[in-house]
């Protein structure tokens, strides 16, 4: 299955992926409209320091602790992609407690959110990958 991978050698720490992610999942068609003067809730996050950076987003584990631990059944695997029904989620954050990569976070409504490979939005392909200026994030089989 294709997944999002990051190559920290090429990550510039520009944080564009976070903004592209937040925009792609905003449901709006204009980035300024979606993100201006708002706190963003990206599903991908840059970690690192001044010299080394890399983006982290859901690994879509084949044996995912988040899905197994979810108390509501909101998290599930669909064709290998771990997706979340935010309608079902009550925001207990057990998934955050068990994700080994720190890839699940709370959205503006305090329920859990995670990378769903932009399959549920209109981006068409992962927005972080598409918008990465240095091919540091790739979407591929590995």
């Amino acid at each position, binding site marked *: 299955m294709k997944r999002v991978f990051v190559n920290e050698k090429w990550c510039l720490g520009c944080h564009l992926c976070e903004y592209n992610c937040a925009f792609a999942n905003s449901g709006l068609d204009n980035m300024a409209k979606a993100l201006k003067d708002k706190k963003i809730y990206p599903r991908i996050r840059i970690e690192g320091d001044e010299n080394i950076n890399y983006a982290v987003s859901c690994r879509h584990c084949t044996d995912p602790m988040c899905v197994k631990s979810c108390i509501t059944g909101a998290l599930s695997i669909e064709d290998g992609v771990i997706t979340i029904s935010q309608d079902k989620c009550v925001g207990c954050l057990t998934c955050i407690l068990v994700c080994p990569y720190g890839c699940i976070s709370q959205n503006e409504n305090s329920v859990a959110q995670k990378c769903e490979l932009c399959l549920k939005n209109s981006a068409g392909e992962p927005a972080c990958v598409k*918008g990465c200026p240095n091919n540091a994030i790739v979407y591929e089989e590995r």
Partner: protein
Amino acid sequence: MGIEYIYPEFEVVRNADRCIKCGVCQRQCANEVHKLDEDLNVMLSDEAKCVNCQRCVALCPTRALKIVKSDCRLRENANWSDSTIKEVYKQASSGAVLLSSMGNPNPLPVYWDRILINASQVTNPPIDPLREPMETAVFLGKKPEKIQRDENGKIKCELAPQIKLPVPIMFSAMSYGSISYNAHESLARAARELGICYNTGEGGLHKDFYEYGPNTIVQVASGRFGVHENYLNAGAAIEIKMGQGAKPGIGGHLPGAKIVGDVSKTRMIPEGSDAISPAPHHDIYSIEDLRQLVFSLKEATNYKKPIIVKVAAVHNIAAIASGIARSGADIIAIDGFRGGTGAAPTRIRDNVGIPIELALASVDQRLRDEGIRNNVSLVVGGSIRCASDVVKAIALGADACYIATSALLALGCHLCRTCQTGKCNWGIATQRPELVKRLNPDIGYQRLVNLVTAWQHEIKELMGAMGINSIEALKGNRLMLRGVNMTEKELEIFNISHAGE
């Protein structure tokens, strides 16, 4: 101090309706133009630092940024242009030679744009490159004057060493040091994929890039940086750099600050020491000396590598080329006055040398007049900007073209012409690791491959239109060219007719 103040050349225009304060501009500007003011919660700009490299513009996700030329100008004066006056100010302040980078930006004639290409109509057919083979391969190197046969009458097929190029384009010399490791990697990988050559420049060959040897031209310049036996034998050819179009008659100076780590190792000079290339080669003070160096290099490489002699296009270039053609050199590379550089004195860059078009026209004709055109191949550079420039150069008589500025553009260069600062925001003309990594060679090499592939397609289209299906039949085929906006004298030098004739 007021007298020293010069209003910034550029202004940063930020569309407040669009700016989402993501801070990408701030993080991406090595010149520190942008800054988020936490108190005001706005992005501020220090425009004095802006070099208009467009990095922020290109990366701004909401297209909130543009960089415009400042309209705060001095009083208009046709003699004393704004930039001329400001240069005086700068020199009055610094007492120093002005430095600049990349090619001559001044509005001197671009003859490529005054030359038009022919096409076939009715009396002979244009050829469709999508249907018919369209050949662009060339061999660079000395060709024999007379066929030799063995005792059985079979032709002896030994040729002097040649460089085979599937398309008559090579990446010209840019040293490791003046450009980054990733830029070199991109060039090397692209050259390999395209089957063409890139050129080490005078900075030596990084150990990682020996594997690209068959697609590498190794350069020997006046500083002799990084030159050793393995280096000479590593490439497809050796280039002796006598001069560079951007700064004829001038050596090079890479500041010690850039001589760090692998750059120092590759150049074989101590870290932090300035790399000074003298103006002349101190063992070449005449054409006979050049011949000695040519043959020294041939000896060192067992006569297996063609030797290129690169010179800047200067006034008596035809005579110089004739001398080189008789020096044993296999290939002459001529660099025109619009060629790029990582740093050159502004006055030299903008006032010394001649256009490559004229140099090429007269050198090709001179070598033919002397009957020695087949003794050498002719490679021209110094602002070959597009496929039609290549076609025009070949039709004027070049065997191949060197491109560098256009290659850098493909790698992301936005021609801000401040390479000398070492703060290239595109990761090209810099050695700062956090900037170097901005050029991902996976992207860079692909873009170079795309560029040359695209040009090759265009060359084929242009050739097909002319009814020519092999680049050999285009070489020196000046009948395919016509001039516009040219004086009789110019037409005479180009040896072409005016359009309409």
